[in-house]
């Protein structure tokens, strides 16, 4: 397969689909002391959880799109192969052709200079062999580029997901530690 160029990303964006980046927490104490977090671990955890849910939803979407594209590419490759076969065909060929699922019908194909391509939306157009090949090649190239973009986004998304999970764990542990420290501080004066 020819190497395909990925489209360039605009300067400020890291993904093709515009996925928000998760904030990495350097130090939990300073992070919690920020005015919006106000040392309220409950609120922070809820916010992070919401973010986590959104990321998971996006991940599901991207995975579905990726699977569809992955299926499209071999289909396009097979169509290209068919065009080559039709081009080299010299005399009548007998074949069985898919009428509907599980049903094939016997037909004879005489050498032809044109093919009909499904363009989707119930539209089929007749093309001369060479143009059809051109069109299919273009479709395949754009499918491959889209797949690469999706994979890039998927990787980025996974990173954000992991960062958010780690942040949640750290905030939770920080809260736990604070509670334990508070409990220890409140019991020690009593025992002195």
């Amino acid at each position, binding site marked *: 397969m020819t190497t395909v160029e990925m489209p360039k990303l605009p300067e400020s964006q890291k993904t093709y689909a515009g996925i928000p980046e998760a904030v*990495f927490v*350097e*130090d939990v104490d300073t992070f919690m002391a920020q005015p919006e977090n106000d040392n309220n671990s409950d609120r922070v955890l809820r916010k992070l959880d919401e973010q986590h849910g959104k990321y998971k939803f996006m*991940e*599901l979407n991207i*995975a579905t799109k990726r*699977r569809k594209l992955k299926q499209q590419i071999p*289909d396009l490759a*097979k*169509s290209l*192969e*068919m065009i080559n*076969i039709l081009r080299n065909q010299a005399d009548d*060929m*007998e*074949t*069985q*052709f*898919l009428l509907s699922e599980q049903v*094939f019908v016997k037909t004879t194909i005489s050498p032809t200079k044109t093919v009909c391509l499904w363009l989707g939306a119930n539209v089929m157009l007749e093309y001369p062999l060479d143009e059809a090949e051109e069109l299919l090649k273009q479709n395949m190239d754009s499918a491959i580029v889209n797949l690469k973009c999706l994979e890039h986004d998927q*990787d980025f998304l*996974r*990173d954000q*997901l*992991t*960062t958010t*999970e*780690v942040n949640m*764990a*750290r905030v939770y*542990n*920080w809260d*736990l*530690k604070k509670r334990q420290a508070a409990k220890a501080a409140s019991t020690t004066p009593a025992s002195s």
Partner: protein
Amino acid sequence: MTSKTASSSKGTFQPDSDVHITFEDQQKINIFAKHNAKLEDLKEELKVKQNDLKNLEEASDEIELFDEDEQIPFLLGEVFISHNLPKTQELLTEAKEKKKKEIKEIESKCKELGDIIGDLKSQLYGRFGSHIYLENDED
């Protein structure tokens, strides 16, 4: 539907309260998770391709005993094209070679990822010890 996308417990990270995590560490964890997920995807693909190869082998075994002139419909995309025995065998061998090559590529990528993952694992365990959990839950 959910099984493909639910990668929840592959390499869970539970940092402990006293351990400080730097940006570098976070990036290493991210890379680990990314490679792990890619490895899982590749393993799935590998299974599918190996199944295809098995089917091709079985098919070529089946037709070995046929007559020379017997027309064998060969599936190309959505249509069957009938060929005689030698031609069909040739097509099958070609298809098998292609599959074997693809399988080799996937296997080498898997090995590469596996090496990086092993390396990162030792680094992260060295850094965090028992505070981090990096094993895959075997299904």
